[in-house]
Structures are given as C-alpha cells and as structure tokens.
C-alpha cells in the first residue's frame, strides 16, 4: 500500500490520469466490495438460485440426481406432514402475533414512563433475548415437560394433577406459545420503545389540555403514530414463526411431539433434508415456505399502508 503515503497537497481531481494513484482511485470501490461479494456470491446468492434447480431433482446421493420436473412441488399437495406443519405454524402464528404485539406494546408503554426501577425491568425483560435458543429449549423442556418441574408444586396448590405438559397433544401448542412469548417479548418491547420515544411529548400534553384521558390519548395518539412500528413487529413475528427451529427441536424434536402437535415448518424442512436426505423435496418445501413468508409480509405491509391512508 505504498500509494497511501504518496505526498500530495492537491485534491484527487488534479492527479494525472494513468498514474498509479489514479488507477487505484478507480479500482478502490471494486476492491473494497469484492471480498464480501465473492464470498456472498458463493455461499449466499448462488445457493438461492441453486435451490431452485435442486428442487426439480430427485437426489440419490450427494453426487447423483435425476430431473423430475415439478414432482417435488406436486408432493406438497399430498404430504400429510406438510399440511400438519403448515396448519400448526399458522395456528400458532395467529395466537403469537397479536399476543406479542399487545404484550410488548403494553410493557413498552409502561416502561417509557419515569417509573421506579424501569431500567431493571427493561433489562430483565430483555434477558431472554440474549439467551441461546438451544438453552431456551432445554429450560422449557424441563419447566413445562418434566414431572419434576417446579410447575408441579404450583399445580399442587390448586390441587391439579400434573405429569408434565409436553406429553399431552393439547398442551404442546400452548407450551410453544409460552416459550416464544417469553423469548421474544423483550425484543419487541425494545422496538416499541424506540418507536414511542419518537412521539413528541407535546401531543400528549395538548390532548390532556383538551380533556383527553389516558386511554383516549393511547388510542388516538399512540396507536396511529405507532402503526408502522406495530406492523413491523407483527411482520417480524410472522416471519419468525415460519422459521422457528432450535427451540422447537429441543422441545418436541423433529417428530413434532405427541400427535405431531408441535410439528412446524422449520422442523419438516430440516427433517426432509438431513434425516430423510430428500434434498429435492426439502428445497421445494423451503421455497414453499419462502413464498408463504413473502406473501404474508407483503399483505401485512399493504394492509398497514391502506389503513394509514384512510
């Protein structure tokens, strides 16, 4: 990098073309982005296109495959596991997204005020967010699934027989729901807090002078001004629901638990790819999942923008 020390009291514009300095000037941007783009091209962008080709193949092994057209996609319509995983994911999403928004907005709203100990609350609520998903899965597997969970003692107080929740299909989804909320509410709360801090305080002051009560200013000031932030959090939670893997893997395994009640999209993609080694079908599933996520995200953005323009 000898060029670096080239003494020059004049601006770059005055450097004669064809000098070493001039060439380096022109090339620098490409040199700066190429380490990133070479790696990203091979391991990030190419796989996205490669996956399309893979999904049209039937794989015998890592090295040999046969073109089968759209058969992998046709299989989506008859695969019972896919239908169960999709409906489980959608059901959980319908529960998770509104609860996540309501809880995180409520916490953010309280903790945006000068309440005693708010820094402690914020920190504590955010703690699960920095915890490894595998550890989250381990903790909830024990707390909600084990006979020796402290939850048993709580149940005893209410005289409810407790033998763990994860061995009953009707409790598996609530268990996953609780785990997801526990892990992510703090995260969404921080997004909401950032949004709340951008609302000018004068608006609330003016509303109060006009005689609005707390609830009224919440509904007429906070919610409309937070619409985009709320939509953002909702979209993230939706995307997250379709991508969940680690926690669910630790909690119910790739089988999805009793009666496949906890079988989710992330689990079946992994299972098809690395337990059944159906590379082609796994890629078709992954693309179906991607299309669902993208369509849902655009629908949510569209709905938000429409509501905003009304």
């Amino acid at each position, binding site marked *: 990098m000898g060029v670096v020390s080239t003494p020059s009291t004049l601006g770059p514009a005055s450097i004669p073309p064809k000098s070493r300095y001039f060439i380096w000037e022109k090339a620098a941007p490409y040199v700066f982005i190429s380490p990133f783009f070479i790696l990203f091209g091979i391991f990030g962008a190419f796989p996205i296109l490669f996956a399309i080709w*893979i999904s049209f193949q039937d794989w015998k092994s890592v090295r040999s495959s046969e073109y089968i057209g759209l058969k992998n996609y046709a299989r989506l319509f008859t695969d019972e596991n896919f239908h169960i995983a999709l409906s489980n994911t959608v059901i959980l999403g319908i529960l998770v997204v509104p609860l996540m928004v309501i809880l995180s907005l409520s916490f953010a709203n309280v903790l945006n005020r000068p309440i005693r100990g708010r820094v402690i609350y914020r920190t504590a609520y955010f703690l699960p967010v920095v915890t490894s998903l595998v550890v989250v899965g381990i903790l909830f597997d024990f707390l909600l699934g084990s006979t020796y969970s402290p939850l048993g003692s709580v149940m005893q107080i209410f005289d409810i027989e407790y033998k763990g929740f994860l061995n009953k299909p009707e409790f598996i989804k609530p268990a996953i729901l609780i785990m997801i909320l526990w892990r992510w509410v703090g995260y969404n709360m921080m997004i909401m807090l950032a949004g709340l801090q951008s609302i000018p305080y004068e608006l609330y002051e003016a509303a109060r002078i006009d005689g609005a009560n707390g609830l009224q200013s919440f509904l007429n000031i906070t919610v409309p001004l937070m619409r985009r932030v709320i939509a953002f959090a909702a979209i993230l939670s939706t995307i997250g629901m379709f991508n969940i893997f680690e926690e669910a893997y630790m909690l119910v395994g790739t089988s999805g638990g009793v009666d496949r009640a906890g079988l989710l999209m992330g689990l079946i993609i992994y299972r098809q790819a690395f337990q059944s080694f159906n590379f082609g079908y796994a890629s078709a599933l992954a693309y179906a999942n991607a299309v669902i996520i993208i369509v849902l995200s655009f629908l949510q953005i569209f709905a938000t923008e429409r509501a905003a323009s009304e």
Partner: protein
Amino acid sequence: MSQRVEASAASPHTGPISPTKAISLGWIFTHLLLLIALLVFIFPFYWMVSSSLKPLEDIYIVPVQFWPTRPSFNNYLEIAGLIPSDEIDFRGGVSLVRTFLNSTIIAVINTAGNVFLASLAGYAFAKLRFKGRNALFLSMLATMMIPNSVGLVPNYLIMAWLKWINTWYPLIIPGLATPFAVFWMRQYMTTVPDEMIEAARIDGCGPFATFWRVVAPVVLPGMAALAIFSFMGHWNAFMGPLIFLNKPELYTLPLFLAVLDSRVSGRPTPIHLIFTASFVSIMPILLVFLFAQRYFIAGLTAGSLK
C-alpha cells in the same frame, strides 16, 4: 392492561416522579404486574442456576427444591472434566472446556472477519461512486427476503463437494459475508460527513488509508454493535454445527448441550450437567449484555431488519 398503563401517560417521558401520584391504586397495580412479569422472565434462569448447584437426585425429586439443600460446585468440575465423569468419558473425553474454546475460536474469527468485510463494502456503498453501485446494493438487499432455510440444502451440497463436512469451514466462511452486516455498516457510514473524507484525501490519504484511519474510527460504535450482534449469532448458532459436525472434539457449545440430551445419546439425560453447561454457555453473552447494553440493543433491534 393498556388502560392501566395509560393512567398517567401524560407525565413527561423523563424527569422526576411527581410525588402527588406516587402511591395510587393504579401505581400499585402497575408495579404488581411488572413484578409478576419480572418473576416470569427471571425464573427459568434462577431454576437453571439453582439446579446447577444440585446433585442429580435433588433435581429429580418431588416436592421440588426451590433452594438447593446441599449446594456444591461438583457439576461444574464434572462438566469441565476436572473430576472423573462417565458422561465425559462417553464422549471421548471431550468436556465443556474444549467446546467452550471451539465456540470462542469460531465466533471470534467470524466476528472480526464479518465486521471488517462489511465495513469495507459498507464504506464503498455509502461514500464511493462506482458503476453498478445501486444495482449491486439493491440485489443484495433483495436476497435478505429469502429465509435461510432455502440455502440449507445447497450449502450442504457445496460443503460436501468441497470436502468441508466435519470441519469448521462451513461454520466460518459463509458467516464472514452477510448482507445484513453490509447494510448496517453502510447506514453508519452515511452519517460520516463528506468534508471529513475530502479533507483526508487532500491531505494525501489514499482510498484505503481514508477508510482505515479516518472513517473507521468514526464508525467504531456501529462496528461495536455489529460485532456484538455477530458474535452472539455465532456463539448461539446451532443448525450449522448440527448439520456439519459429528466429531465430539469439533463440537460447539449449543451442539454439546444438545447431544447431552437422551434423545440424541440414548443414555439417561444428565440434567444436572445440562443445566450447568447451559449456564456456563450463556454467561459470556450475559456479561457482555450487562456491560454493553446500549450497543447490544442497538445491534439487536436493528438486526430485526433481517
């Protein structure tokens, strides 16, 4: 709940707590809810730590022990391989110490590389003019809409062809170049005044010196946030190690935790050791979080754009 919450929303966002409404029904109710929530968020951590101090028999017991009756650090010594252990022997002598080291090496290389490559590219996208700049940047952003699961199989095949299965390369190399990191650094670089860069050029700095000596120091907070975000992602990564590694001596922490489970090992689950190893594995991140909260939250909530 939001009604309660809003009972005094008209108070300033910052400033002293006004004494007149220090204690009211709403105040008590709000704090009660906040405390219950606090308990819910903290309890799993408490259970993990208290169980890590119990022998196995005291965890598998009814009624449960909320407080360890015979606390000891034996679990820590056992999982670190410092006292004889069947579990460690079963895994060819690979202990928590080894996997902790593995995770550290992988996460550190990744974080350093990721931040450096992303800063270089981010600088070019934010401050240098070149042909194809916008097209490249936008197409990079577009790939961020595609979930990672699409790349699972292709990446596995690529790694198999490169003969990288059962090595750390699949865990390190792809993670060096992530679009989010470039996006993040570019956003930071745009806040650097053009005059500053001009001045550096006039003083004779070449393109790299301008980046390294002038721009990089200014965007250090952005790099710090990205570094924390990136480190945490790699420290906690599970699917990559699960797919690419099956030699115990190469395991990372999350994989080590998962294989202790009976569903994988086929042996009774040593839950006392799992709780202990879990606690040790989250400790570095927890400590960084408690000391660098600001960068952490900046990096993570911006990571939401992913």
